[in-house]
C-alpha cells in the first residue's frame, strides 16, 4: 500500500515537472521581430517572421500582419498595403468556421486552428492601410488623387465593418466563437464544469463594441479629402462613442477628447454649411466656442511602444474524492514577476475568493478549503459526481491533468508625458486616444471564461479517451497504471494555450491637434518616460493643406530614431 502511494506520488511529480517544462515561457517570433525592429534591424525582423510564420500555415494571418506592419514602419507603403490586404482577406475567409478544424482543435488544442485575429484588428488594418495610401499620395505627383481615393476606400470599408459590429454587439456581444457540437460527452462535461468561472457580472463593459478612435481618424481623413459630409458623420459617430463609454472603457481623458471632437465637428459643419441649428445646439451643449480663426491644422499621431504579450500559465486539475469536487491549482512558473502575475490572474478570474465560493467550500469541505480558496478553484460536483464517474472523468483524472490558459502581465505605465515642440518652442502635450494594451487585456479577460472552459473540456476529453482506450486493451493493473501515466504525460505535453497575436501593434496611441500658419516647421516629439529618460524625434513637416497628419512610432527602448518610421502625410 505504501509502495503504491509512493508510486503515485512519484508519477504525479513527474507529470508536474513535465508540465512545467513544456509550459516554459519562450519569446514568440513576432515579439522577437518587433524587438529587432525597435533596434532598426528590419531585415532580421522580417526574416524572423518569414521563418516562423508560413504564408500558408495556420498562423498565416500573423505572417501578413507582422510583415505588413514592419514594411509600414520601414516606409515600404505599397508592399505594406499588399500584405495587409492579404491579411484582410484571411480574416474575411474566417467568417466561415471549419467544423473539421474545430473538431480537431477540441481534442488537440486551439493552436491547431487557423488564427483569425481579434475583432479590433480589422479597423486597425484599414487605418494603417489608409495611412500608407496617404503617405503614397504625398510622394506621388500625378497619382495623388488616386491614392487619396484609395485611402477613402479603406475608410468606407472601416465604416461598413464598424456598422456591422455595432449592430451585432448591440451593447454586449454574444459568444459566437464556439462552434456547435453534438457530442454528448462534450455537452455533459460542459454542464459539469459550468459553475466554475467568475460571475459574469464581474466582466461587464469590456466588450469591443465600437471604435471611436477609428471613427475619429476616418473623419480626419475624409476632411482632408474635402468629403465634408462623410467627415461630419464620422466625427459625430466618434463623439457619440467617446461620450457613451469608449473613453471610460479605455481610460482616456473624456473631457479633452470630446472637446476636441466637438471642435472638429463644428468646423466641418461650418465648412459644409447649412447646419446652423445643429451648431447652435452643440455650442449650447458644450458651453464653449471653438477657435475662431481657421488656421491649417497639424494633427500629430504618436504610436507608442509595443503591445503587451500574451503568456501562458498552467493549472493542475484533479478530482477530490472526499469533497466530490474537481480542484484546480495554479502551477506558477517563470520569473518572480511572472509568477506573481499568474497568481493574480488566477485569483482575479478563477479562484474561490467570493463570499459565495467561501461558503460553498465551507459547506462541502472543511476550514482548510476555505483558507485555500485564494490558491485553488474547487468545482463542487454534488449530484453530478456519479455522472462524472460514469463518464470516466474521476478515474481519468487520477494523475491530474494540465490545463493551459493565457494571461497578461499587469500593464505598466512607462510614458509619463509626450510633448510636441514646434521650431524649438513647446506647442502642446499629447493625450492618449487609443490603448491597444487595454484592448488586449480586456479581450483576454473577456475570453478567459470561455478559454478555460474549452481547455478544461479538451483535457478532460483527452484523459477520458485515453482511459477508455486503456480499459479496452485489457492490460493488467500494473501496466494499466503505467499506460495511464504515459497518456497523462502525453496529454500534459500537448496541452497549450493560444498565444498568437498581432505583436507589432503599439501599446497606445497619443494625439494632439495644433493650428499653424502654412509653412515648413521643425517638429520635435519629446516623450518623457517614467524612468526619467526622454526620447526625442524630429522631422521637418510641411503644413500646406488645411489638414496635415504627421504620424510616428516611438519605441521606448531606443534613444534616437534612426529609421524612417515617421510619415509626413
Amino acid at each position: 500500500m505504501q509502495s503504491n502511494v509512493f508510486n503515485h506520488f512519484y508519477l504525479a511529480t513527474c507529470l508536474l515537472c513535465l508540465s512545467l517544462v513544456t509550459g516554459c515561457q519562450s519569446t514568440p517570433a513576432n515579439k522577437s521581430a518587433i524587438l529587432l525592429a525597435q533596434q532598426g534591424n528590419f531585415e532580421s525582423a522580417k526574416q524572423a517572421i518569414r521563418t516562423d510564420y508560413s504564408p500558408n500555415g495556420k498562423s498565416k494571418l500573423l505572417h501578413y500582419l507582422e510583415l505588413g506592419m514592419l514594411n509600414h514602419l520601414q516606409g515600404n507603403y505599397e508592399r505594406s498595403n499588399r500584405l495587409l490586404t492579404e491579411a484582410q482577406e484571411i480574416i474575411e475567409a474566417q467568417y466561415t468556421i471549419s467544423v473539421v478544424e474545430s473538431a480537431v482543435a477540441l481534442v488537440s488544442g486551439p493552436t491547431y486552428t487557423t488564427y483569425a485575429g481579434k475583432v479590433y484588428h480589422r479597423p486597425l488594418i484599414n487605418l494603417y492601410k489608409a495611412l500608407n495610401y496617404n503617405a503614397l499620395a504625398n510622394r506621388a505627383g500625378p497619382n495623388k488623387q488616386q491614392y487619396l481615393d484609395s485611402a477613402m476606400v479603406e475608410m468606407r470599408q472601416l465604416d461598413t465593418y464598424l456598422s456591422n459590429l455595432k449592430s451585432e454587439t448591440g451593447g454586449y456581444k454574444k459568444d459566437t466563437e464556439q462552434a456547435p457540437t453534438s457530442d454528448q460527452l462534450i455537452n455533459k462535461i460542459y454542464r459539469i464544469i459550468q459553475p466554475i468561472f467568475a460571475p459574469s457580472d464581474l466582466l461587464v463593459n469590456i466588450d469591443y463594441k465600437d471604435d471611436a478612435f477609428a471613427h475619429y481618424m476616418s473623419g480626419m481623413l475624409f476632411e482632408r479629402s474635402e468629403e465634408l459630409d462623410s467627415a461630419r458623420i464620422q466625427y459625430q459617430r466618434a463623439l457619440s462613442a467617446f461620450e457613451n463609454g469608449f473613453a471610460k472603457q479605455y481610460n482616456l481623458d473624456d473631457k479633452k477628447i470630446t472637446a476636441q471632437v466637438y471642435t472638429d465637428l463644428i468646423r466641418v459643419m461650418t465648412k459644409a454649411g447649412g447646419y446652423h441649428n445643429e451648431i447652435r445646439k452643440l455650442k449650447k451643449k458644450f458651453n464653449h466656442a471653438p477657435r475662431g480663426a481657421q488656421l491649417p491644422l497639424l494633427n500629430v499621431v504618436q504610436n507608442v511602444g509595443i503591445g503587451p504579450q500574451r503568456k501562458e500559465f498552467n493549472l493542475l486539475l484533479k478530482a477530490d474524492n472526499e469533497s466530490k469536487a474537481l480542484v484546480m491549482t495554479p502551477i506558477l512558473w517563470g520569473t518572480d514577476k511572472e509568477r506573481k502575475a499568474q497568481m493574480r490572474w488566477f485569483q482575479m478570474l478563477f479562484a474561490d475568493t467570493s463570499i459565495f465560493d467561501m461558503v460553498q467550500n465551507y459547506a462541502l469541505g472543511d476550514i482548510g478549503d476555505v483558507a485555500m480558496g485564494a490558491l485553488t478553484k474547487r468545482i463542487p460536483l454534488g449530484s453530478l459526481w456519479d455522472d462524472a464517474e460514469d463518464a470516466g472523468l474521476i478515474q481519468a483524472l487520477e494523475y491530474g491533468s494540465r490545463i493551459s490558459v493565457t494571461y497578461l502581465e499587469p500593464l505598466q505605465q512607462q510614458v509619463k508625458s509626450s510633448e510636441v515642440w514646434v521650431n524649438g518652442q513647446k506647442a502642446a502635450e499629447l493625450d492618449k486616444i487609443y490603448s491597444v494594451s487595454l484592448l488586449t487585456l480586456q479581450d483576454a479577460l473577456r475570453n478567459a471564461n470561455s478559454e478555460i472552459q474549452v481547455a478544461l473540456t479538451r483535457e478532460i476529453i483527452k484523459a477520458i479517451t485515453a482511459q477508455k482506450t486503456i480499459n479496452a486493451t485489457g492490460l493488467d493493473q500494473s501496466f494499466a497504471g503505467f499506460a495511464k501515466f504515459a497518456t497523462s504525460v502525453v496529454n500534459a505535453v500537448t496541452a497549450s494555450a493560444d498565444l498568437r497575436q498581432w505583436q507589432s501593434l503599439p501599446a497606445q496611441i497619443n494625439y494632439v491637434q495644433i493650428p499653424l500658419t502654412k509653412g515648413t516647421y521643425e517638429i520635435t516629439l519629446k516623450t518623457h518616460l517614467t524612468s526619467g529618460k526622454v526620447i526625442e524625434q524630429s522631422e521637418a513637416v510641411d503644413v500646406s493643406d488645411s489638414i496635415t497628419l504627421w504620424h510616428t512610432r516611438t519605441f521606448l527602448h531606443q534613444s534616437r530614431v534612426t529609421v524612417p518610421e515617421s510619415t509626413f502625410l
Partner: protein
Amino acid sequence: MKCNKTLLKITPLIVACTLAVSGCSSTKVQRVDANQEVALSDKWNGKDSQLVAEAMINDMLSFPWVNDHLQKEGQRPAIIIQSVRNKSHQHIAVDTFLNDLKRAILRSGQADFVANQDVRLEIREERKDQELNSSLETQNEMGQEQGADYALSGTINSFVDEQGGSRVTFYQVDLRLIDMTTNREVWNGQKKIQKLQKRSRFGF
C-alpha cells in the same frame, strides 16, 4: 465485445485517414475565356468593368449630341477622358475601367478619342526626339494635335448592406460628358449593379 474492441482499434486509423484526406489539397489552374465571368466574391470584377463600359458608351452615343456635332462640325467628335473617381468601398482598378471605356468608344466608330495628359506629354517628348533624330520625311510636326471637343468624367460609388452572412453590394457608376466649348452637359449616364453574397457561418 470483440467487435467493440476492433472498432476501438480501427477508429483512430479511420479518423487519421479522414483528416489526412481532408487535409490534402492541390492547386489546379485552368484557362477560361476572358469574357466569362468568374465571380468568387461580390467585389467589382473585370466583367463588371467591361459590361458597365459598354452599356454606358452605347447609351452615350445614342444621345443627340453626336449627330448635332456631325452636322455642325462635319467630323466625328473627339472625346477626352478626364477622370473617373473611385468613391466606392472597394479598390477598383480605375485604369482598367478607363481602358474599357476607351475601347468601347473606339469600337463604336462614332467618336474619336484623344489621349490624356500623361500620354500626350510622352508623345510630345517623342516628337521632340524625332526632330533631332528622325529623317525629315518621317518626322511628325509639332502643333498638329487634335483638341478634344468633349470631356468625359465620372464617379464610381457603392453602398453595402450586411446582415449576418448576407451582403448586398450596390455599385453605381455615374458618367457625364461636357462640351468643352460651352460647358454644356450633353450627356449624363448611370449604370447600377447589385450583387448578393451569402456566406455560411459553418463549413467543412
